[in-house]
């Protein structure tokens, strides 16, 4: 017997492309855009969301039958806030510099719509194991977009990846810079993230016309 049934693997694979939380469901944009100027920050943010979403989905799913529906938003917020505090304190202890770069955006995972969205849409109606897989899948779909955007912004904007120069030295004019290549400063500024995501959405919908919205 395989590890995951067909339905279960669909839970993980669907959000990676055709039901992507960022480009299709339009959830969790806020934090996705602000921290993608560097690849490293994108990866850490993706991992943090993976942890919070998977664990939160399991906890909410376990409690789904005892939460009164009137106060469920507050219960959900408390669960997320607790998990985010764990992430924040861990980052402060083991990666202090990085936690300074991410600043308030770690805290903003609490109000990341992707988390509340998955709690409402999935964890409240499904068992813990399926909810866990759904959390992993959606967080991966979110992380993939973050890492793609971070990759292009850091590569084109600073000529580095994870802080390591890959295109040569812009001051000593080695590598590509010897042929007159320049860094695109536009990629560093915040609005560039919106345009990169816009182009990703364009490419995805051009490849798969069934996703196109009715205007």
């Amino acid at each position, binding site marked *: 017997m395989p590890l995951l049934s067909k339905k279960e693997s669909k839970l993980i694979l669907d959000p990676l492309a055709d039901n992507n939380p960022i480009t299709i469901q339009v959830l969790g944009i*806020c934090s996705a855009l602000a921290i993608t100027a560097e690849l490293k920050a994108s990866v850490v943010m993706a991992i943090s969301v993976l942890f919070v979403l998977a664990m939160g989905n399991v906890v909410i799913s376990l409690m789904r039958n005892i939460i009164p529906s009137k106060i469920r938003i507050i219960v959900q917020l408390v669960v997320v806030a607790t998990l985010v505090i764990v992430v924040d304190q861990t980052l402060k202890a083991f990666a202090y510099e990085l936690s300074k770069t991410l600043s308030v955006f770690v805290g903003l995972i609490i109000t990341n719509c992707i988390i509340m969205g998955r709690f409402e849409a999935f964890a409240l109606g499904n068992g813990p194991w399926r909810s866990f897989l759904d959390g992993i899948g959606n967080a991966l779909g979110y992380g993939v977009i973050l890492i793609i955007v971070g990759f292009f912004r850091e590569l084109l904007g600073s000529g580095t990846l994870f802080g390591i120069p890959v295109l040569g030295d812009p001051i000593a004019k080695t590598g590509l810079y010897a042929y007159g290549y320049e860094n695109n400063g536009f990629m560093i500024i915040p609005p560039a993230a919106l345009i990169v995501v816009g182009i990703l959405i364009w490419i995805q*919908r051009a490849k798969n016309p069934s996703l*196109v919205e*009715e205007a």
Partner: protein
Amino acid sequence: MLEHLELFFKSIFIDNMVFAVFLGMCSYLAVSKKVATAVGLGAAVIFVLAVTVPLNWLLDQYLLQPGALSWLGEEYASYDLSFLSFILFIATIATMVQLVEIVVEKFSPSLYNSLGIFLPLIAVNCAILGGSLFMQAREIPSLGLAFNYGLSSGIGWFLAILAIAAIREKIRYSAVPVPLRGLGITFIITGLMGIGFQSFGGMLTGDNEPPAATEEVVEVIETEQIKEDSEDPIETEESIEVIAGID
């Protein structure tokens, strides 16, 4: 007065919630199809931000900051509860939103009809929590300034959603490439608007600031030197006295 004015314009134009730090993007994208609904949500955001930021400022000052508990007594002065800020801030926001909803429903049904349906949406709007977290991170010094910060960031968000809703109403008649329709073009327009808003960046960093800063530094150095100069003779006098006392 001047610092209030500066913070006001800075939060609206330079540190605009949507264009500079991308807060509240989810509802910004979801509720910006029509101008009328955008105005309703924008007004609700202004209101809730103006209420929750000063409240959370009080919490931060008297409960959460390192040493904030010293008003309870000396033995509490070393407590640092700042790790609790996320959970307390979000609890304050969720409660305030509920409270506002109940009060508005009771006393002004017409306002409730136009604003009330958006209030539950707002509890999970990143702009609201973001306002409080930025207030904490930037160490806003007084309650008045905290209120000002909440109000003006709300107005900045309002302007942004109003602008994009107006553009989206018009763009329906344009020939946008099919795969870009809807979400894609909204992202790109927001990006272009963000670049436009970046040009406000020079507004408050006029010519006066750098010289003023250096003057201050020079003054500080001068006063320090004067202090040092004046301290030396006193010390010697004291030491002379001490020596005299021993004698």
